[in-house]
């Protein structure tokens, strides 16, 4: 059962990866990277259950945090050209 769910995660991760390669604009790629991160968080938690090692859930929490911060940081860098301060 967990193996089937992991397979579904892998298939949709491949589809999202195709969008990252095809994407016309930067925003398409950033959006697809964020979705890929969400799928990977689910995959890490599922693998923790499949291998009977619940420590993987901590890694999933940290991955979700870093996914959010990374997406916002890339968009800010793309918007203002630098990461410092709140200069518009």
């Amino acid at each position, binding site marked *: 059962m967990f193996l089937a769910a992991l397979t579904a995660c892998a298939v949709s991760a491949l589809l999202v990866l195709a969008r990252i390669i095809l994407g016309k604009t930067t925003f398409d790629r950033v959006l697809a990277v964020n979705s890929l991160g969400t799928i990977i968080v689910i995959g890490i938690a599922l693998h923790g259950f499949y291998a009977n090692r619940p420590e993987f859930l901590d890694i999933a929490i940290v991955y979700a945090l870093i996914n*959010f911060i990374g*997406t*916002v940081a890339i968009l800010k860098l793309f918007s203002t050209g630098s990461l410092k301060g709140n200069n518009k």
Partner: protein
Amino acid sequence: MDLFIDLLTGLCFFLGSLCIIIGACGLIKLPDVFSRIHAAGMIDTGGTAFFILGMIIQSGWSLITVKLLLIGIFIFFTSPVTSHVTANLAREKGIVPVGKKIGKLL
């Protein structure tokens, strides 16, 4: 009782897999950035909600349940923020959405 729990988990995983695969297909198929955000939102809300519900049913009451709930709450609060930031920046950089426009836009 064990069989019942397994069946319920399997149903949740089936619905969640359907959600993320349809969302990924939509991400490939839809015409522009603003429409693709809807497909990404489907992965973020429907997929995670069903998978985490399934894992909570499987794990029973323990510290694992709390950690799973924390992952769910965190994705629930951050997913609209990333969607809105992406859409807002795309509008500010001058990408005009395809389709009908009603009234005067901002």
